[in-house]
């Protein structure tokens, strides 16, 4: 029998997901209250195809 069990690492270890909430970074979404969690879930990414406002040196 292969003895793999004792060499396993990371069991039960979650990934950390750093997010910004009202200006502060938070290490895990678990600590957000329900409303903030919902807000984070709803965020859509903004497209950048039309970036055209670049002021050049005068």
């Amino acid at each position, binding site marked *: 029998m292969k003895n793999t069990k004792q060499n396993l690492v*990371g069991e039960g270890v979650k990934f950390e997901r750093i997010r910004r*909430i009202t200006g502060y*970074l938070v290490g895990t979404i678990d600590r957000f209250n329900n409303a903030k969690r*919902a807000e984070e879930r709803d965020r859509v990414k*903004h497209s950048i195809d039309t970036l055209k406002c670049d002021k050049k040196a005068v």
Partner: protein
Amino acid sequence: MKVVKRDGKVVSFNDTKIAIAIRKGFVNSRSATSYTEDDHNKIFTKVIEEINKRYPKDGQVPIEVIQDIIEEELKSLGYVDIYDSFSSYRTRRSESRKAFQNRQHKLMKAIESLSLKTAIEEDSKRDNANVDGNTAMGTMLQYGSTLAREFAKSYIMSPRIASAHDDGEIYIHDMDFMPMGTTTCCQINLDKLFSRGFSTGHGHLRPPKGISTYAALAAIAIQSNQNDQHGGQSIPAFDFYMAPGVLQTFKKMFKQAVKEYIDLLEITKEIDFDKFVKKVDELTTMDVDIKTFKEFYEKDKQLEKSIKKAYDMAIKKTDRETFQAMEAFVHNLNTMHSRAGAQVPFSSINFGTDISYEGRMVIKNYLYALDSGLGKGETPIFPISIFKVKEDINYFEKDPNYDLFKLACKVSAKRLFPNFSFIDSPFNLQYYKKGDPNSEVAYMGCRTRVMGNTANPDKEIATGRGNASFTSINLVRIGIKHGIATNKEPNMEEFYKEVDEKIDLVKDQLLERFKIQCSKKVYNFPFLLGQGLFVDSDGLGPEDDITPVLRNCSLGVGFIGLAECLTALIGSHHGETEEARKLGLEIVSHMRERLDNISKQYKLNFTLLATPAEGLSGKFVAIDRSIYGTMPGITDKEYYTNSYHVPVRYNISATEKIKIEGPYHALTNGGHITYIELDGDTANNLEAFEKIVRCMHDNKIGYGAINHPVDRDPVCGYTGVIGDVCPGCGRHESEGIPVEQVEHFEIRTECASCTK
């Protein structure tokens, strides 16, 4: 219609009060979690129907009858458990209608839910994501806050203000600190603090010598001051404050190196070392031509070589020590839990505009330290880092700090920090005096901004000032009441009338609290006032009135949910239509104007704040849903949109969002922030990232940040975007993998300092 109260008093009929009573019946019952606001609203609608059926429009309803109707409807619609708890609550209340017992009941109720539920079950335990509600100290903190809040409501505040807060018309932030009279935050002038040394209450700290002690004392200052306030601490010009420390380190290193060389080569007699030391001590920058020291080496070739080598060595060593100092500073601010509940101080630092050699060395190394992360490569949560963008300093390609601006973009694309503030935006530029860092706008990380000063026009500066307290208005409810959500046509006259009433109510509340704050003495805030951190607090005696000092603070009036308010008023928000865009600006301009007038009238700084909605985001909407039910685009989410933001769910391009939100920055003088959300790939496109920051600058944004996913696998250390599987080691979340698989993985994340 009128309502007859128990004491016989006749008051006008207010259906909001009924909705809130019904809501309380649900929320206070044991089975609260099995019901939603839609259930509350269903009962409410039936109760109002029933009252209208039984009483004529000009009739008088006794309050007991309203309660009977609520009970009847609860029973007939099958909410038996709520009926039971409502009627038993009613019985208990009528038995103990003495004020003291009511208060006690409320307190016990609040304590009960804290003690018996874990943070996962109890939403209020997770109000502040920086407090770990499950730890012993965290729970202790929550007992304290709960009691302080109820005490404030029952004994300190005017009843009309307390009930406006409870009913969700306004929200008084940090109410638990009201009895203590603390102020929110401070923009600390480290220069002043360092020039004479300072005392933390556990001994005097001498003026620092060298960058390591400069950085260490900066962290100590932040930690000491946060115990005197309930909000955050900000360093307005970190680079300018640290630069002298870099120069001191250089001088020490240079003298040391020259000494070592001449000792080693046994040429001590060829140089007047005391005179050399004096010459070095007189230097005002480390960026000097080596010929400055010609007089010491002109007679001796070997000496010339040694001094040149020593100079290069000293520069290198100073650079390294500066990096270590910055690394330690960041580490310190992320690990020193100096408040209960495993909280580190809420710290922010502003930097980016010092073009001196030393200042640039600070900025560069701070960014490198941020980039390399904490001990295991974790992304630092604190301090909130803010890069100040300014034309002719770091904005154009020809500018002396343009390279550092680019580096800031690169680090931000990996670590979410730094954020960017924009001194060129007219409302910030008006205070700017070239060469005076005190005149450069600084932000508290969360977004608070304190610059203008109606109370004291000579002190329109960032340093030594902060916010006293802030309170937010539920803009959405006013919109619902007077907009097409509940009427045929929006009634703007009534809308503005109520907005003004709410602003005045908040003004009264802020003044009520300001009075408590001003009644305190220097010994209540031994660091903040005792060490002269607040402007004009130098030399205040123990019994002196602190009012003149606190007048320099801002009193913030915030708002929540402009987007939902607009939808309630006219059916669309400012992301959607030009009409809403115009109306949004009109509403917020109106608010600002009123606050400017109030400021002049009271000679105080009432400022308009784009509220950071932590803790508040879901509270207003839950109450409004109980009153008005679920209204599409208004009360159909679990939260209201932040201040003037375009709703996070709305699909819009980055440019468009920046253009729409830009004008609000000029109006919200108490603080603002605009976010752009990027996916991982776009954030890694540095050209695109920089363009967004430039776009913010060009559209007169005051303060902005770019959000993108930053994930990390603690097992292998991979930092980047992680989907279901970690790209570093190939494991799924919570999955165990053979240890060899982890060891094969070498950290792939790039380090800004290595690639340079």
